[in-house]
């Protein structure tokens, strides 16, 4: 589903590579934690998978597309197969919960009939049934992240990328969010979650890929945070 082959990424005006000779394969339906300190390259990895940046060297394959060869105009099509969740939620402040989730379908041209069916189902799945008319500032951090997850998932993408989704949340909410992602993973969606929340990683015992200074130093199934040290 996602494959990095000898991938190096050097940002302009930077001497040190953000990622150096990364080899990584994530299969369909897997749940992978990407851990590491700040600056280790976690976000860069996700941005390369999303084609927000391009690799300086090596090949990145996502959902059958070789991203280095993908023409610019086909990038939107790639992104429809990938849902993304961020640390800062990125909701539209003037739209309700329902409208925020529906937005993702409206811009893709889905019919209002389909939207009226799918959005309530998705909101129920993330545990926000009954809160459709609330605005983001009327929700807690955990609830806002659920809205973001609903928006990322409403189009049933094959892959869901989460960049430190629990970064702004307390421990209880963090666990709830990751459990929600786990439920989504069980529907068949591949999940890659970047985090430096050790508690979460240790509790879930999923595959852990650890980055340090842009290199993969550990890749083990049912791993824990920092076990190699």
């Amino acid at each position, binding site marked *: 589903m996602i494959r990095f082959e000898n991938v190096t990424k050097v940002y302009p005006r930077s001497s040190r590579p953000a990622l150096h000779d990364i080899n990584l394969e994530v299969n369909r339906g897997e749940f992978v934690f990407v851990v590491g300190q700040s600056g280790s390259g976690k976000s860069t990895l996700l941005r390369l998978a999303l084609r927000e940046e391009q690799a300086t060297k090596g090949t990145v394959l996502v959902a059958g597309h070789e991203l280095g060869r993908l023409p610019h105009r086909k990038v939107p099509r790639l*992104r429809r197969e990938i849902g993304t969740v961020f640390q800062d939620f990125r909701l539209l402040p003037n739209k309700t919960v329902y409208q925020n989730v529906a937005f993702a379908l409206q*811009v893709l041209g889905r019919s209002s009939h389909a939207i009226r069916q799918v959005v309530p189902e998705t909101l129920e799945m993330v545990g926000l049934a009954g809160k459709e008319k609330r605005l983001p500032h009327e929700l807690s951090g955990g609830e806002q992240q659920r809205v973001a997850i609903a928006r990322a998932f409403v189009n049933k993408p094959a892959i869901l990328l989460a960049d430190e989704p629990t970064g702004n949340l307390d421990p209880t909410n963090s666990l709830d969010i990751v459990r929600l992602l786990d439920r989504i993973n069980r529907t068949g969606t591949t999940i890659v979650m970047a985090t430096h929340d050790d508690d979460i990683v240790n509790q879930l015992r999923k595959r852990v890929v650890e980055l340090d200074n842009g290199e993969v130093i550990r890749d083990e199934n049912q791993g824990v945070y920092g076990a190699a040290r």
Partner: protein
Amino acid sequence: MRLQFILSEIWIGLRRNLSMAISVVLVTMVSMYLLGLGLLAQRQADTFKGYWYDRVQVTIFMCTEDSGEPACDKKAVTEEQKNAIKAQLDQMRPLVKNVYYESEQQAYDRFQKQFRNSPLAGNVRVGDIPQNFRVQLSDPTKYEVIVSSFEGAPGVGAVQDQKKVLDKFFKGINYITIFSFVLAALMVLCAVLLMATTIRQAAFSRRRETGIMKLVGASNFTIRFPFMMETLFSSLLGAAAATGLLWATANYGFNRYLNQLILDQAFIGVSDVWAITPWMVVGVAVLSIGTSWVTLWRYLRV
């Protein structure tokens, strides 16, 4: 469904960016008004000239029964007299380059076209303008030769040299035209820069929405189209306002004033405004779509 979504995005965008949208409307209005004035000035010059001005230098009008000219003696020109005049003109080649004969019907038709905006047009009948020979010279400065050869000749009512009458108008018209076009060019530049700035500002203020649209995989078209349509809408509104102003200028300045006051010259009118409107509208549309396309391509990369 998508159309409805895009239309609502356009409307929301205009409301959020109302002051900038109004600026675009006003600047487009002023630039198109100035451009329209320049175009109308050119059309006025063409209207003054009529059909023959650029083609010939001297006109020899034949006598009619109603001619007030003393040389005619209240008699219409005869066929022999006409043929004699024609023969004499032919003898004067190569100074005489071309001779065109215009019948009373043709003269009437051309008068109606040139004086379409004048109150006179309805009062003129076929025959009021005499049949005539229009003479094109190889050396336009030598028109006096023709005038002196034919003035007072049998069958000749009057010999007219058009340039003398109209040249003084053309100098003024040319100044107006140049002035209007230069101002219009500056205003069009203002309009282009303003449209580009408006789009950049709108794109910046909507970066959250745009960012999410990019993230969920909306096509370039879905993202850029609302911005382009907002610009097009504002600029077309400006063009419509300019057309209204030009109509008022033509109607109150010409149709209802000059055309009634000065009867021996042909003036433009409201119909000329309608003639230039399609070009202005198309020009504005092309300008606004082109500017927004380039601006979005530079500042709203997906």
